[in-house]
């Protein structure tokens, strides 16, 4: 067996990881007081599955990823537990973190545009991630990097090139190759396709799905694209204004949403018209996300929710999980079927818009 096959075999033996996030809270310190970017978020990623984390921009999805990776700025307060295979990795020492990062949990960043060091060739950046954790010769690490390039469909010759010589899609693939370099049990993909054009988005997502089938890593896929979630993820968690509003099996959450926000989110995305039905209009959710420097007392979605009652403005709903694992934070979750019907009507939302 060659050294490379040996290395590949050894890395392939790594099991997929289980990630449990419990009561995660993140507060950024600002001049005007703490900014509660994440409030009490909990979810679990079972080994080998993909969790889709959805929500509109600014809802805190990316902050969750950074908190899991311990990448938030020093002035941030992070509380709660992030259990990776049962071991809390939140607030580990720098040394201990270095050992966890990339060997057990790796990251596919948003904007691959700026995610690569502009003055280092891409091969060296992948090799760097390997050599930080494996005591192997440079040449072997380079061979592994070439292999990863093949996995994402890039020719090995281009390892010697610099980020500015790559197109956006190629850079994104290079970042994915880098994330795979040590076959970490857990992959965090933070909006991997946002900066790309639709065709490239589709190519990259197909690539990610292929890799997922093939390597069976656990993954968190952060996105604002519901269609991507429905195609890729076993479970889905919906975030709104720093809180988890709904989570469960993707089919449940997307087909039978129980939170009005999830219903609204679905309306806001174009669907392929089903033959024989009329084309559904795009309906947007009226209003804006509340200011988290002064979070509202009640449900954070209340000000935009067409079904909000007095209770919603007064009291925060708890995230309650039903027996099928479908969890929702809504005071009127039991009226979901009724809401779902109403939510399909544009008038429902327009009436709310008029009320604001």
């Amino acid at each position, binding site marked *: 067996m060659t050294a490379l096959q040996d290395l590949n075999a050894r890395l392939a033996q790594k099991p997929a990881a289980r990630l449990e996030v419990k009561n995660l809270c993140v507060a950024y310190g600002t001049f005007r007081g703490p900014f509660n970017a994440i409030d009490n978020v909990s979810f679990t990623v079972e080994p080998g599955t993909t969790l889709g984390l959805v929500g509109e921009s600014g809802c805190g999805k990316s902050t969750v990823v950074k908190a899991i990776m311990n990448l938030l700025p020093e002035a941030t307060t992070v509380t709660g537990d992030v259990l990776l295979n049962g071991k809390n990795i939140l607030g580990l020492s720098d040394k201990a973190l270095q050992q966890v990062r990339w060997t057990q949990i790796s990251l596919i960043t948003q904007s691959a545009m700026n995610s690569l060091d502009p003055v280092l060739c891409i091969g060296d950046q992948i090799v760097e991630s390997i050599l930080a954790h494996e005591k192997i010769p440079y040449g072997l690490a380079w061979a592994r990097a070439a292999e990863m390039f093949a996995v994402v469909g890039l020719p090995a010759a281009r390892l010697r090139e610099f980020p500015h010589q790559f197109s956006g899609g190629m850079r994104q693939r290079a970042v994915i190759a880098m994330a795979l370099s040590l076959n970490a049990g857990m992959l965090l993909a933070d909006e991997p396709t946002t900066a790309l054009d639709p065709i490239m988005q589709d190519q990259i997502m197909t690539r990610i799905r292929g890799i997922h089938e093939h390597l069976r890593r656990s993954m968190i896929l952060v996105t604002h694209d519901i269609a991507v979630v429905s195609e890729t993820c076993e479970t889905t968690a919906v975030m709104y204004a720093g809180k988890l509003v709904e989570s469960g099996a993707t089919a449940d959450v997307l087909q039978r949403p129980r939170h009005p926000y999830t219903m609204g*989110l679905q309306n*806001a995305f174009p669907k392929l018209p089903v033959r024989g039905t009329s084309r559904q209009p795009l309906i*947007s*959710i*009226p209003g*804006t*996300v509340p200011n988290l420097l002064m979070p509202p007392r009640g449900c954070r979605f209340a000000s*935009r929710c067409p079904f909000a009652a007095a209770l919603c403005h007064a009291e925060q709903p708890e995230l309650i999980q039903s027996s099928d694992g479908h969890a929702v934070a809504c005071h009127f979750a039991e009226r979901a079927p009724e809401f779902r019907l109403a939510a399909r009507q544009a008038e429902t939302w327009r009436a709310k818009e008029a009320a604001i």
Partner: protein
Amino acid sequence: MSQSTPKTDLPPIAGKGMLAAARESFILLIGDSFAVAGMVILTIFAAIAIFAPWLAPYDPFQAMLTESGRLLRLAPPSSANPFGTTAFGNDVLSQFLYGFRVAFIVGLVAAFAVGIISTVFGVVAGYFGGLIDDVLMRITDVALSIPTLPFSIVAVALLGPSIENIVLVITLLFWRNGARIIRSAVLTERERVYVKWARAAGASHIHIIMRHILPNIFRVVFLWITMSVAFAVLTEASLSFLGLGDPTVISWGQMLNTAFSSGSLRTAWWWVLPPSLGLIFLVSSLYLIGRGYEEQANPRLRRR
């Protein structure tokens, strides 16, 4: 998703005045403790410069005599001469206090001249572009290869050592860097949406420059003027130290030149220390202001 109208952060079409820009800068400055320290030092120094004749116990050129009528050379500090005397029997404190004046006059006049010339050239080249811009860029390309101090040495020697000539040479030397910096700032401003709007609305060039361009490049001009004062003070001090200063006035560089050439460095610390510290504090306080300002005004440097 919400379909709220995009937020526009455009300033009102009328633009803002220079006073508003100056006030914004001041607010930024007092946010940085180093810059505040610099401003305090500078204010104290300016007060000393203004009141030097009243503060100085003697005329800076007056020779101190001992009781027996001999020249009081290199006397250590005493109650009569708090900072001692020089090798030529002059009172160090009085010379030191008058030195504030020269430093301030050179700094302010040169900065004023450099600031105005740089701004005019920078704005004209940046705003109108074209031939003026090309010529300016070629001139600064060459000028950047002229060694500054050697040029001043030769020029001052040829023109004759006087404060006026020193200021003239400093102005000749330093306008180029400023023009270049200000030009690139103007280029950025010129492309802003509100400038285009103002133009489309029929505003005159003068109006656009005064209300839109200048207030928005105030930060760059301010920084450049702080730096120019520092360069001017340093250049005058260096020239005087090399013996090319104005012989009719007393400057810190000259004091050090006399101390150095009379071989008194080792013994007369009271003679060497005041002008050295005066220069260090004056120039660093300018740098502290400039740096603190940059730190506050540059979002990538500001602490989050």
